[in-house]
């Protein structure tokens, strides 16, 4: 039997608008994944520690405050440092299209802004984790 995909949904930084993160957490859970939601106000250090502790396949970072590049960069650096850079990092929230390329060059595998179909996110995660394993 295939191991269930494990996802850490996280809100790095100070933005407290959780609606999107919680929605994705619930949708992924309903799609059969195991989801841990960190809650808001997480430092990159806390997120990476939780991701390693929980042995997740994917980290979903949700930011609406414009701090997406800084936090994604720090999370990815820490994952590399700890030898956990096989974990797929995804971004979502209020992110200008202009920044998508920058995020991807930092190592973010997919950026899913407002209005993205949750089906698209589920399928992306399933195919990313399969290709990783």
């Amino acid at each position, binding site marked *: 039997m295939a191991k269930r995909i494990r996802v850490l949904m996280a809100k790095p*930084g*100070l*933005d*407290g*608008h*959780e*609606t999107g993160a*919680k*929605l994705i*957490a*619930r*949708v992924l859970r309903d799609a059969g994944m195991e989801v841990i*939601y960190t*809650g*808001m*106000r997480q*430092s990159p250090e806390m997120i990476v520690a939780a991701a390693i502790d929980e042995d997740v396949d994917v980290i979903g970072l949700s930011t609406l*405050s*414009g*701090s997406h590049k*800084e*936090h994604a960069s*720090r999370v990815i650096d820490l994952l590399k440092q700890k030898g956990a850079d096989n974990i797929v990092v995804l971004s979502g929230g*209020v992110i*200008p*299209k*202009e920044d998508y390329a920058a995020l991807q060059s930092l190592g973010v595998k997919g950026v899913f*802004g*407002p*209005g993205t*179909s*949750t*089906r698209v996110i589920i399928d992306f995660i399933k195919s990313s984790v399969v290709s990783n394993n």
Partner: protein
Amino acid sequence: MTTKKVTKRTLPKTAAKKGSKLFSEAAVAQIKDEQTEWEESVLKEYPKKKPETRAEFRTGSGDIAVKEIYTPADIPDFDYSKNIGLAGQYPFTRGIYPNGWRSHEWPLQYYSGFGTTEDTNKRFKELLAQGASNVTVACDLPTQIGYDSDDSMAAGEVGKVGVAICSLDDLERLYEGLPVDRVSGTGNLNCLGPIALAFCYVLGEKRGVRPSDMQVGFQNDPFKEYTGRGTFSFPPRVALALAIDVVEFCSKNLPRWWPQHVCTTQMRWGGCTAAEEVAFGLANLVTYLDADVERGIKLGELVPKMHLHMTADNDLFEEAAKFRATRRLWAKIATKRYETKDPRVVGLRITNYTGAHRMTAQQPMNNIVRSTMHTLACMLGGVDAIMNPAYDEALALPTVESTRLAALTRRILHYESGTANTVDPLAGSYYVESLTDQIQEQAQKYFDEIEAMGGALAAIESGYYLKAMADGMVKYQREVESEERIIVGVNKDVLPEEVPVKIFMGNPEAEKKQIANVKKLRAKRDKALVKEALAKVRAAAEEKMVKPTYNTVPVLLEATRAYCTIGEIRKVWLDVFGEYKPLTYY
């Protein structure tokens, strides 16, 4: 023909109010008969030739089914005087001003801020030069929560969603060359109300303006933060006590200041329905007002300076009906709860920040149309002040152009559409009166539920509000993805490639500059004065833990004058009040 002679004896001395029921039973029965025949012979056949576009028609919130047609048979007991009456008097359904908007103009006002104080100062001057009547300061997240710009938790967030204000020093620089007599009190420092008050007060002092002459307004609604916004730190009961410190201090010393307005925006944006929005807002409002009464504050003087800050969603008639239902329900609740007929207490002002949650990232120019819908719903519903998000809301902070266009939306409707020429023009519509009744009935049910569980504090702490929001959000998303709910540009009329829109990109140097500012301030301050002031802040907080009505504002005035930072004050408070760890529901 004989005419009956009318003498003084045949007329009652004081005519009893008979009520003004509009439809006779006979008329309703006849309409019902005609309608039944029409449904069977005309209506039933029509969709066979032309199928309806949806399986079910429902209001935007989804909890009210919408029929093909509404007639007097849908509101058979409608009594004009009892149900809606005239404007400016009980039950205030038609509005709180007797002549509606005929003496009113919707001002060009903004919520703005970003980067350093220099960036925001420049933006404010630009907006004022373009005719803005006032600008509310938008602070960045570290400021709103209470982290100084150089705190490790602030990394990446400084100057992003608003301007960084660490101390009075920053506020003074922000207001350089700007009048302080009309300061819109540092926007959303909802959980740090007494600090915001102290900063504005001392700013006035420093500029030689008597604080009591200033006209300052605060949001000061900490409940908002526990229900979808997230800048809280302390337990809700502490946050409530701090908010009432602001209201009490203003009522005693600063009668021209507007110390609080209560928000439903974040709950609706987070997924709750229209009826829930009404109920949750009024439940929060009574909790605050009960606490005000406990401190001896006169509601007749306070409530006219407050308002219920709601949002406007897409369904035009549901939203207009919602505002009417809100006023009528409040009139009913307040009359009973506060045992008063005082129109100042019982007539509720409603303001609005229109549907930011409906601003799509896809084809953002479409959002101009949406904002117009929302604003029209507000005007038809009798809403007082209206603020609109810019069309690029889902992408970034607004540009000067996009924020100005947003503000002009309400001006164009006001001056050019005729909507505001008469009071409550939708009154008497069979559909709108039916919606108003149904929304009020549902809202009353939720309000009673919240009362039964112990009020707004219990609703927050138990996760009741958060559950309603999360459930609503999931339902909404499912409807969008199944195309049961159409959003133009998102699941219909989609463009294969989006047309790029010019967006605001902020100041990437702001964080570095602001960190340097704070460090400079700390070096040049009188350290002894700071230490002494913070000790007094601690003592006041400890006193407050024993006696929640102890007012923290006086010691904060001293701390502000000593240039203590928000971060320093919050650290003391956190130590004494403790940190709130909320339940998570999703």
